[in-house]
């Protein structure tokens, strides 16, 4: 401590105790806020699992049946069945259809924005994508319910317009923006020297994209697709309104399906709090949380792999 300054010099100016105390306090608050994200993730898992856990020991509930059976009769008086396989298949079939539509268009649009268009058009397109991503899911659901279902009934021989195809198209439109923006980032991350080397050899833009950029950016593009999958799996309102409401394994794209998310949204309001039905819905939430956790973790690992390179 240099509390006593040498004689002849004025004392070194110091901040008041309050100022220093305040600073320590504020830094503590900042640190606390920093770790809050961990607390919330753990909290989400804890509170959902706490509501779901009692059903695991319930006499009518079997875990094997929950994961592997297609029979979902949660409110039946004698014959209660809590099989979510049809819902899981519903979720994955809608997601798969959405990705089949969204991935080529999303990556194609990302390539166009990144490589083929001028700076003005690029700015405009990026703004349009941002606005497209901002459309609320309930509005997409409404579009599926009203516009898309009419289009489907007119051009196909489906009886009802709300089905797997409808949900797939709506989900594709919803996940395209995220695929485009992450995919465009991935292409932007490829060093310009790659492009210059390609052009110097006389390659056209197309040859450059196909032979150089796509292989170089494949991890980033994979991450873009994975994040699109994550969004499609977790989407609730749009699929609730657009896929129809049949708990069944779909046999074609014109069949109605129900997804894990839509099932929770549709039935949670009717299930009495604390009943096995209510707890099974929370368990479905745990399942959903786990699926998206794995998908997001995979996307993050892929992205991290790029950064280390």
């Amino acid at each position, binding site marked *: 401590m240099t509390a006593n300054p040498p004689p002849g010099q004025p004392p070194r100016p110091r901040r008041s105790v309050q100022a220093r105390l305040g600073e320590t306090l504020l830094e503590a608050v900042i640190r606390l*806020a*920093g770790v809050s*994200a961990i607390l*919330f993730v753990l909290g989400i898992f804890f509170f959902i699992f706490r*509501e779901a856990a009692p059903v695991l020991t319930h006499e009518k509930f079997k875990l094997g049946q929950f994961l592997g059976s297609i029979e979902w009769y949660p409110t039946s008086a004698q014959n209660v069945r809590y099989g979510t396989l049809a819902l899981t298949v519903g979720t994955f079939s809608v997601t798969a259809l959405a990705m089949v539509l969204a991935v080529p268009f999303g990556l194609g649009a990302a390539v*166009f924005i990144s490589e*083929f268009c001028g700076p003005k058009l690029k700015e405009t397109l990026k703004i349009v994508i941002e606005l497209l991503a901002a459309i609320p899911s309930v509005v997409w659901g409404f579009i599926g319910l009203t516009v898309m279902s009419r289009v489907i009934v007119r051009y196909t021989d489906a009886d009802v317009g709300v089905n797997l195809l409808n949900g797939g198209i709506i989900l594709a439109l919803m996940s395209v923006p995220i695929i485009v923006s992450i995919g465009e980032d991935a292409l932007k991350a490829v060093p310009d020297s790659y492009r210059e080397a390609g052009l110097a050899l006389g390659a056209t833009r*197309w040859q450059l994209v196909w032979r150089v950029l796509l292989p170089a950016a494949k991890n980033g593009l994979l991450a873009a697709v994975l994040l699109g999958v994550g969004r499609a799996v977790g989407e609730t309102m749009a699929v609730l309104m657009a896929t129809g409401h049949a708990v069944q394994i779909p046999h074609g794209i014109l069949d109605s399906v129900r997804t894990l998310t839509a099932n929770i949204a549709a039935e949670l309001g009717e299930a009495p709090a604390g009943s096995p039905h209510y707890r099974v819905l929370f368990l479905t939430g745990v399942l959903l949380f786990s699926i998206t956790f794995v998908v997001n973790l995979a996307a993050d690992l892929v992205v991290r792999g790029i950064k280390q390179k």
Partner: protein
Amino acid sequence: MPATTPVADARRFTRTPFVLRKERTERVARAIFFCMAAAMILPLVAIVTYLVARAAPSLNLEFLLDIPRHGMTEGGIWPAFVGTLYLVGFSLAVAAPLGVLAAIYLNEYARDTWFTRIVNLAVINLAGVPSIVHALFGLGAFVYAARFGYSILSASLTLAIMTLPVIIASTREALASVPMAFREACWNVGATRLQTIRAIVLPNSISGILTGVILQVSRAAGETAPIMFTGAVFYKAVSRGDLFAYGLDEQCMALSMHLYTLSTQVPNVRESMPYATAVILLGSVLLVNATAIVLRVWLRNRKRW
């Protein structure tokens, strides 16, 4: 830069069949990619036009200010509109300070340790949690465990946790864009970390932070699933044009929820009403986003470094 491509250069010389083929592939590829980009935009324009056309008979100030009448088949959307304002306001009042502080910690204080990596992973994961899972969490934690009941408080806290990771991410990006030299200069004149943040880092990144927060306004306004089971109701009586319609411990109506109920649960609604609700919700969301984009472009042009 079409003038400098090898294709253009090649034209000065004789064009061999190989070059011709190359050019043709290039034109086809460009056209296909252009169509893919256009395929994203055309449905948007077509759908918005269609919605506005169908909504036209109900799109007026009276529809916005009036309350729902005759079992929601007539009247307006005022209670839902105010409810959405409340939910968005309270959720951001919680999420914005918390998110900004968390981002300050992650960008200015945290070193690259295993613990920081776990925090980052938690933020990424939180951003990927499906909205219906947030709803379950809100129901279990706020409505039952914390005994807030079905209320605006529960619903806006649920929304706050949902928007938090995105606010953290956008704020971090804004903070990271402040050059390191600015901080170093400030430390070298004897300022502490916190003084540097207050005097240098925040003033230079506030525009980016604000843009990120504004974007979450529209996200919170549009979400339905998280509020469906935590505080939003089918119908609530408030007086026409009343801006202070709800208390924190009351349930409320919300625009997104109202659109869902009007289009799926209420029979014999006047045809244009759900369309008008959708257009007003979509319009407000896009307006807020457009504001954020304009703000960002304006501030980027003013930037001095």
